[in-house]
Each structure stands twice: as C-alpha cells, then as structure tokens.
C-alpha cells in the first residue's frame, strides 16, 4: 500500500544548503501495523495488541489492559494544538544519534533522542512550527497527485541551539493516539479516566550516512508517503 521516501537537508547559519540525503524509507513499524489492524474493528471486538510509545512504554488496543486505546482514534494525528495541550512534544519527525538495529521493531529513533520537544533539555528546538505557518509548518494541507500517486508530505525543521555539533543517524515519523488509564474513584463510586497522549513511531529509518549538524545549523527532515495511482 504504502511507499515512503525521506529527505534530509542541513543548512548553515547563512541558510546555505550544506547536506542533502534522500532515500526510500525502509521501515513501517510493528507498532503502526498493530494500531492499523486494530482500527478495522469496532469497540466490542477490537483485539488487544501491545503498542509502545516512543520512549518504550506500552499501551494497549482494546479495553482489557491499561492504559488502553480502545479502537485507536486518529492514528495519523500530528496536530500540534492537541500535542501542546498534553505535553511538550512536537509532531512529527524525531531524530536520534545512533542507527537502529532493527528499525521495524524499534519504538523511536535510536541512541539519544535529540529532537522531539519544545523544552531546552534537547539540543534541537523546533523551528517554524505554529499557527502562522501553513498547516503549522508540518504537512501538506492537502494531498497532491504526483507521478508516484497521491503524496502526503510531513516535515519538521529543527535548529541546533546547543553549543556542540550533534550527529543524526536515525529518524522517526511520530504520530500520536490517546490512551486511557483508570484514575481515582469518587465518593459516589464512579471512577475517573486519565487521558494521555501517546506519541508512537509509524516509520523509522536509519540515515544512509550519519549527518553532523553544527551549532546554529538547521536540519529539515521530511517524509513523503505515496499511495499508488
């Protein structure tokens, strides 16, 4: 069904393009496939699959184990307005410093996670993500019909705000779904449900060659998913 390609561009402080990588994506993940299969069912018979979020914590399809996602809703969600409400995570392409031994079975980019979030705890900060950019600067707002079929492109810009060069060796396309966990029981006996946003990697790739991104440099990463026509 799906073929995807990734493209990586690095620009220096003056905006000059210094590195370009482009290749076929290799690996839809088992976590994505499990969520996809579960989404074929209704709430009464959805199978229980363990799905791991990007940091490796499990949640489950169906409702028999917690945290549970039921029939997973919006498995392609990259809406930053939703993500920012629940976390400091930024959709949609996260970066790691090492290649993954088996990307299809990984939970996220491998090595140290260096680009994912708005906090200053990571070397990379999101650039040009927000309501002023077309579709938040994250995606093509509508599919386009190309020679390869319907194309949907998802993009992130990350700026190295640290004082050291950072090597990028793996990348992941990260969507998010909700999971529910039973919370406190009230005096009337009703139990609350705690809703958490679970970012998960749908595609993970090792870069064909690791890339060094120097302080002040901007890395633009994109995935284009093709649906044949």
């Amino acid at each position: 069904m799906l073929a995807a390609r990734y493209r990586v561009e690095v620009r220096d402080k003056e905006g000059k393009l210094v590195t370009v990588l482009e290749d076929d994506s290799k690996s839809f993940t088992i976590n994505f496939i499990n969520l996809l299969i579960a989404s074929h069912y209704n709430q009464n018979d959805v199978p229980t699959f363990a799905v791991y979020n990007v940091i490796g914590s499990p949640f489950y399809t169906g409702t028999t184990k917690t945290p549970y996602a039921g029939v997973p809703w919006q498995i392609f969600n990259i809406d930053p307005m939703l993500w920012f409400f629940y976390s400091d995570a930024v959709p949609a392409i996260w970066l790691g410093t090492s290649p993954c031994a088996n990307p299809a079975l990984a939970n996220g980019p491998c090595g140290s996670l260096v680009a994912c979030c708005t906090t200053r705890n990571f070397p990379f900060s999101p650039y040009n993500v927000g309501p002023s950019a077309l579709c938040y600067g994250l995606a093509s707002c509508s599919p386009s019909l190309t020679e390869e079929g319907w194309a949907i492109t998802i993009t992130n810009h990350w700026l190295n705000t640290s004082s050291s060069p950072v090597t990028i060796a793996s990348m992941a396309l990260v969507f998010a779904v909700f999971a529910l966990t039973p919370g406190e029981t009230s005096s009337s006996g009703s139990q609350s449900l705690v809703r958490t946003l679970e970012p998960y990697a749908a595609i993970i790739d090792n870069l064909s060659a690791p890339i060094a991104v120097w302080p002040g440099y901007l890395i633009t990463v994109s995935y284009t998913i093709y649906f044949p026509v």
Partner: protein
Amino acid sequence: MPKSKVGVTLRIEVRDDKGRVVKVIETPSRSFTQNFANILSASMWTDRSISGLKNIYTFYDVVGNQVCVVGDASPPSHCYLSLYDVGILFYSEPQYIASPYQSYTIYMPGIWPGSFFCPEPVYAYGPCSPISTSVLSPTLFSFPSSPYLTASGWQMTYSQTWTNVTGSPVMVSSVALVFGMTGDMPTPVGYLLYAAIVDNVTPAVAINPGYSVTFIYTLLYAV
C-alpha cells in the same frame, strides 16, 4: 525520484459451481481514490485545527454524497453531511453502518463488484454500477487480524467472495475496496462507507450462474 517499489496487488479467482478454479487474474492495483487521500489528510488534524486552518476537507461516500469535514466551522450548504473531524478510516465490519447504506445495493465494508468500467477510477465513488447482493451474494469480508511480515514488507490481505445466485451470467468490470469511516459529528449516525481503492477489471470477468468470484487485495507496507 525512483518509482515506488511497493504497492497493492489485486487478485481475482473465479470458481465453478464445484469449487474448481477456472480463472485467475493478478494485476497491480492502480488507484487509491482522491476520497481516500482527502479523508487521510483530514484525519491528521483535530476539529479545532481544521477550523483554524480554514481548510474544509470534502469527500464523497459510495453513494456519491458530498461529506464535509469542517472543524468547528459551519458547513457549506452543499454538504450532504458534515463532520467536525475524522477519527476512523479503515472500519471493516458489518455492524454500526449508517442507516442510509443499509438499504443500498451493497450494505457493508468489503470488496464491491461493479458491472461497468469506471472512466477514471481515481475519482470514482465506488465500483461503477455496483452489483446488487441479490445478484452476487457476498460472504463476510475478510480483513487483517494480526501483523504478517514477509520478505516484501508488512502484508495486509483483504478478500471477499461473491456467488452468482441468478440464472444468468454476470459481468464484473470494476471493483472497489470499501471501508467505513467516522469522526466526531453533530449527531452520530454510524460509519459512512467510502471507496479507498477503485480498479477496473480488464478484461471484464464473466461469472456464470452458480460460479463464485473471490477478490483479494494485498497491500504491502515497506520494511
């Protein structure tokens, strides 16, 4: 940019009234529909953002009704139905289908046959001239239940068998992979049916009385 290496295969098996295979066609599938692409794009955003982006997504269901995904905005008057957002797009079971489809020519997700070729499958709403279930009687739609990793990638297989229960031959010229979709909407109505893939069958296949035809879509996700 090189051509995509993975894709979708459509296999068609015709069996006689004794269950013997009399014809097999296997061909690359050609056409994810514009409707599928639009529904998928809409499903990336919540209702609030769809409004904020001022981007109304529209698609057509299998009957040809225009459905609009409008976020919190007011739907344009030309929309048959409006949704705030899209939540589910691969629903494959016969329960909870919106009532208008329950009296339609075919009434559940599956691989639907049509008697005409589609001029442009990519823009079709379903198989062209869908064949009634009183002519070709369906088995239940079979869809993936667990991950299956092959040397070519994750394989997802969909199949459905239809038997000619009339006394005359029936020609099948197009097929469509039909899913249910839903989202948040002002008044929940159940799953709407739409065609994710439409293909012409060339040459058309004749199904004699008592014969059955099985349509198998195999989708591969690259690994």
